[in-house]
């Protein structure tokens, strides 16, 4: 970032965090991970792209519209697992990590998860402890050349607003990072229910 400042706030980079919801955004996520894990940390392709990308949610952080950081969240029954968190080298002095993890925790909390879990690289343990994570146990394990410990953080879920099977069905249909805002399927309700099913026989190719 250039440090020249003419009118204060207007020169500050604009940081946006969102759930990756298009194939372009997913591609950006994968490419950032390739840049950091394969390019900088020399991780083999098949370890980085481990087969779990298509069962996960991916979070993207943009600085002035440019993809800058990403994180993967996998959903287990009783906890959400934060993983593959990276910030592109040129954005590492921006102080993005803590706000990004906070956003991810809040995202999990709003979905109704009471625990965020992660495997922290040894060098990052103090940061996660300061952020309210605690070690699950004393175990230290290693994979892809790094030492890890398991950490967990309790999330203050709001029983009144968290999604349950009794939540308004149309709320459950909303984009997951904007559960409080009407989604595109609510707009579709204007069209009414014409139940446009063709009979199976009509659908069959001749």
């Amino acid at each position: 970032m250039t440090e020249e400042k003419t009118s204060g706030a207007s020169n500050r980079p604009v940081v946006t965090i969102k759930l990756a919801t298009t194939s372009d955004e997913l591609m950006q996520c994968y490419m950032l991970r390739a840049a950091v894990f394969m390019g900088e940390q020399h991780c083999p392709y098949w370890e980085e792209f481990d087969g779990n990308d298509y069962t996960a949610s991916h979070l993207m952080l943009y600085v002035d519209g440019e993809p800058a950081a990403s994180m993967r969240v996998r959903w287990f029954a009783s906890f959400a697992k934060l993983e593959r968190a990276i910030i592109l080298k040129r954005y590492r002095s921006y102080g993005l990590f803590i706000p990004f993890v906070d956003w991810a925790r809040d995202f999990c909390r709003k979905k109704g998860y009471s625990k965020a879990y992660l495997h922290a690289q040894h060098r990052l343990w103090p940061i996660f402890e300061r952020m309210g994570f605690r070690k699950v146990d004393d175990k230290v394990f290693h994979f892809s050349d790094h030492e890890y410990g398991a950490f967990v953080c309790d999330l203050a879920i709001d029983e009144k607003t968290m999604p349950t099977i009794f939540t308004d069905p149309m709320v459950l249909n909303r984009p997951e990072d904007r559960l409080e805002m009407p989604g595109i399927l609510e707009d579709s309700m204007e069209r009414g229910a014409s139940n446009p099913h063709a009979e199976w026989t009509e659908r069959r190719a001749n």
Partner: protein
Amino acid sequence: MSTIALSIEGETVTTKLAMRMEDSLQAFAVRAACFIGELDVPYSEEFDGHDFGATHIIAYVGDEPVGTLRVRWFQSFAMPERLAVIQRFRGHNIGNLLLERCRKLAESRGCNMLYAQALPADVKYWEKQGWRRLVAEEASSGDKRIVAMVRAVDPSKPLPEVEAPESVVLRREAQLDASGLPLGTASN
């Protein structure tokens, strides 16, 4: 063509054209590792909008994708670009393997000229590989940061007269017309 390593540490080196989405992602991941991760190229410059009108060649060591080359097709030439090899696999001639695959592909399509944009520091290397400057050295000096190089696809056939004027082919990726092609290459 210099000699090509066929195996590295017991693993076979192969090349293939990207045919499936996963193949393309492997090609893109190798480029992201090299250009974004190592060279700090911004994402939006690296993935410039030409990836879905191009052919991607991927090199593997065993099943690990380690190198890639993008080929764009023009009427009078094929343009290999975005050559990338993962750092720890460099020094095994994988770049040459990719360029040779590109040359053969161009040959099979009846194309007789390869055109590439090289950094001034790399020109000597390209010349050793049978490439030559598109324009004489004096003409391409100045503040231009890239040197246009050409090579006959079939070394036994003389290179045709170059039809594309320098002003067209030398343009950087950023300067595109509304159709997303380099200025002057669209016929309409």
